[in-house]
């Protein structure tokens, strides 16, 4: 699976919620190879302002159409630049990068917090037609535009919000013990803030369910060359989030 550099035209760029956009680009070479959990590394400006690329998870890849989509939140300069892209503008993209999720399971539970739900959209589609459940957490009702993106692929959608405006009040991890006790899952996939993933890993271990998590670190190269993204791994071995991950077995990194 070679990593490639492409000048990808924008096919569609839509706002799906407040400050959340979905960007679809034409890059057949990436689309045909991509697996869920992998990411692309986008150049957001042709000047050196900002200088570095921005990593975004692949939220959809359509090998037939040759398109790859990302779902991103506008949080700073780089994503604000990205938001200016119009149809047919060309984006400089490296991809697909990193190691994706392992699909060997029959009753998975997907757990996503915030933008961690973006790569899981792709994963859910990929795992179809397995019976699928997703546990999603957001701060308020406003973040639950994700429901729409999961309803076709998932049989059951469990929702928590910090303020209780939709679903159960609290965090995903508060709802998790109950779900796991009800049982039946043979795999957990988690993506979201690190504290959430750590708690998921503990519970997964307790319930004896194999668990994969997707990590985030600040990245310069995206290909394992700069060591800006490494995290502590098992037995003191460092892991590169950009190439050894972003997806890891929970016990590799926690």
């Amino acid at each position, binding site marked *: 699976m*070679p*990593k*490639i*550099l492409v000048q990808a035209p924008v096919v569609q760029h839509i706002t799906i919620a407040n400050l959340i956009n979905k960007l679809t680009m034409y890059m057949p070479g990436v689309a045909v190879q991509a697996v869920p959990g992998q990411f692309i590394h986008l*150049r957001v400006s042709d000047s*050196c*302002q*900002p*200088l*570095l*690329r921005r990593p975004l998870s692949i939220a959809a890849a359509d090998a037939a159409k040759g398109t790859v989509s990302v779902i991103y939140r506008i949080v700073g300069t780089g994503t604000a630049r990205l938001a200016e892209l119009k149809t047919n503008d060309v984006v*400089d993209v*490296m991809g697909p990068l990193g190691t994706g999720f392992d699909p060997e399971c029959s009753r998975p539970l997907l757990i996503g917090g915030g933008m961690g739900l973006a790569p899981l959209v792709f994963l859910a589609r990929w795992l179809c037609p397995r019976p699928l459940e997703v546990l999603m957490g957001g701060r308020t009702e406003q973040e639950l535009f994700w429901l729409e993106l999961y309803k076709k692929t998932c049989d059951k959608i469990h929702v928590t919000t910090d303020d209780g405006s939709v679903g159960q009040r609290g965090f995903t991890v508060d709802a998790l013990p109950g779900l796991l006790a009800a049982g039946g899952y043979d795999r957990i996939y988690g993506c979201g803030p690190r504290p959430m993933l750590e708690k998921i890993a503990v519970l997964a271990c307790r319930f004896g369910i194999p668990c994969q998590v997707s990590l985030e670190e*600040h*990245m*310069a*190269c*995206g*290909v*394992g*060359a*700069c*060591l*800006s*993204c*490494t995290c*502590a791994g098992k037995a*003191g071995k*460092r892991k590169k989030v950009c*190439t050894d991950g972003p997806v890891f077995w929970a016990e590799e990194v926690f």
Partner: protein
Amino acid sequence: MPVNNELISSDMMAVEIAGIKMKTPVMTASGTFGFGLEYEEFVDINQIGAIVVKGTTLLPRSGNAGVRIAETPAGMLNSIGLENPGVEAFLAAALPKLAQYDVPVIVNIAGNTVQEYGELAKRLETSGVAAVELNISCPNVKQGGIAFGTDCDSAAAVVSTVKASTSLPVIVKLSPNVTDIAAMAQTVEAAGADAISLINTLLGMAINIHTRAPVLGNVVGGLSGPAVKPVAVRMVWQAANAVKIPVIGMGGIMTAEDAVEFMLAGASAVAVGTANFVNPCAIVEITAGIKAYLVAKGLANVGQLVGGVNLNG
């Protein structure tokens, strides 16, 4: 008779630095190109002048904790802290893979003590290693780092110890965080350096005004990228005018024009660092661009650029 472009171009771009024969003057900057193969899918490794690998230490190091990079205007700060698997792992795992290619491999080394530099250099005197580059300028580790590179006596001690321990060519990488770069260049030349390379990163800092915490886990880090280019060009010019040994220039090179600027300032070769992160094909594009510049200017050899700045222009 058909012109053999390949031959012409190899000839015009070939350089020799401290006995290291390179097909082009464009090298990788240590720490930005991993162990040489991470960019394999983007760059034809055989077209690189020389590969300078990540700073290597005697024992494995896990580097600094917390966030390690921060973006700054036209630049970046890093505080990797010399994470590396140690010299034995390098020799066992990385070097054999690099040996497949027809490219000189230069090992950037950092010691905690003068002796460690010597030991590292001795251990690396092995087939497949073309030279060592002494990193006496890493701003991101407490020992074995910038302290050696900002004090003339320590720098001289490191260089002469290494020279006594190896017959490999010794390149000394200078820190820009000094008052007098020319004096430092002369010191390491006198101590036996075969070449110097500069600049390493400028010591910098960024603070997140919302959390009030430093952006980098290590508080301070090294500034690289286009932002530092004017400082780097000036230091290369000053150093090249102060010594007779060849100078490898780096610091913010993004384009062939930048590379030519360093060579005119006095660099016999250049290294590309941060640019790799922005454009994984940077090295090959820069190499092609230098060649195109030579052709456009009617120059037969890239060596003709070296030190060609015209002060009375």
